């Protein structure tokens, strides 16, 4: 079995256990829907100001929903010492990390598919013209969040107060990803990029590149350090 096959098997294990327990996805979905509605009450959705802060609201909601899911990602492995079983698998530790990351990405993907259109509906916002680019930016941003989040979730799962610790560790670390994603989203919401001023389009590409760089760095560093988190 090569590395990819091993990761595939582990991802399948994650999906199976999530399908049986249904603990992460349902709470993430309900939470994000609740927050969408909550922002609607708090900010008077008809207000013009909302249009300007919309990308920020969107990403804060998704981040918090993500943290909610990440909290369970490794804590669930503590039951019956599943984590030790996982560590005994004849695979590289980074395979476990990748499998968990892909699983969290899948969950976030589902949450985003439900939440983002709902955001457009409730805040009376038209979807961006460059929808492909928007999906790509959303993917890159989510990947950045989840690559860091999955890693920290493995770290926090070992502590007594992991639910409180994870956001404290994670939020400052993902600040660059949040800034970039919000800025890219903001430009895409302004209209078709072929008609926008070259300045804002340039800045969008700049942030998109930085986001890509962030994704690469926070794939390499966790892979290098993940072994240290899963030691007995």
């Amino acid at each position, binding site marked *: 079995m090569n590395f990819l096959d091993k990761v595939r098997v582990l991802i399948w294990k994650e999906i199976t256990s999530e399908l049986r327990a249904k603990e992460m996805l349902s709470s993430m979905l309900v939470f994000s829907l609740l927050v969408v509605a909550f922002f609607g009450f708090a900010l008077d959705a008809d207000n013009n100001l909302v249009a300007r802060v919309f990308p920020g609201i969107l990403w804060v909601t998704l981040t918090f929903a993500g943290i909610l899911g990440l909290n369970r990602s490794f804590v669930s492995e503590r039951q019956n010492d599943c984590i030790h079983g996982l560590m005994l698998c004849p695979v590289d530790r980074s395979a476990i990390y990748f499998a968990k990351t892909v699983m969290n990405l899948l969950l976030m993907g589902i949450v985003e598919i439900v939440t983002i259109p709902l955001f457009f509906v409730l805040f009376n916002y038209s979807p961006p013209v460059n929808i492909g680019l928007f999906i790509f930016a959303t993917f890159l941003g989510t990947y950045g969040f989840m690559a860091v989040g999955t890693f920290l979730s493995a770290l926090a799962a070992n502590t007594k107060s992991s639910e409180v610790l994870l956001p404290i*560790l994670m939020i400052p*670390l993902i*600040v*660059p990803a949040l800034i970039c994603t919000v800025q890219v989203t903001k430009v895409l919401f302004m209209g078709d990029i072929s008609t926008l001023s070259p300045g804002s389009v340039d800045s969008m590409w700049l942030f998109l590149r930085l986001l890509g*760089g*962030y994704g690469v*760095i926070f794939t390499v560093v966790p892979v290098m350090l993940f072994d*240290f*988190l899963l*030691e007995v």
Partner: protein
Amino acid sequence: MNQKNKGLDRVLAWLAFASIAVALYLVFVNAPLEKTMREVQKIFYFHVASAWIGMFSFLVVFICSIIYLNTRDSKWDIFAYTSAEIGVIFTTIVLVTGPIWARPIWNTWWTWDPRLTTTLIMWFLYLAYGRIRSSLGEEEKRARFAAVFGIISFVDVPIVFFAARWWNSMHPVVISGTQVGLAPEMKPAFFFSLAAFTVLYLYMWRTSIKTELLRAEIKTIKDNVLG
């Protein structure tokens, strides 16, 4: 602690005391008043010196964390987190003195300037580093996890800086044309402050390390006696 180390500590303590006294003299008496900022500019000397120590101590955390993960010698863990503690204190000083200066000069307490943003996020990161330590009981695990976080957060700091710099370039410019180098008469006060704070850092670091080593020693003795 042997006699030689004790002597070095004493020298460092007096050196820190004396150099900060001289730095105060240089800052308040020797250095000229800045033309437009007047007295307010005086805070700059200690502000920058604190920022330098904050950055430097986090670099020390990063290096000691890497060495700890490679050697697994608990000594390096102690080096790392004592330095992080001091770094947080000095970064707090930076975050307090900055707005005091900014209010009269920029006419605002805070702006999301890249340096300010990066410092703030750095401060949060190392507060989180402290939280990891206090939420883990087992010593070895605590050291290992803290080292991992010490490495990953130091990697994050430059990215925050770049993101904030590009982000800020899209905002209205609050800061325009400040700080064009330093007048030559101000240089002695400035560099002496940097040196004085560095000595102070070394002294504080050594003292905390000593305390922690003693604590570890007491724990070993206790464990041996109570078995």
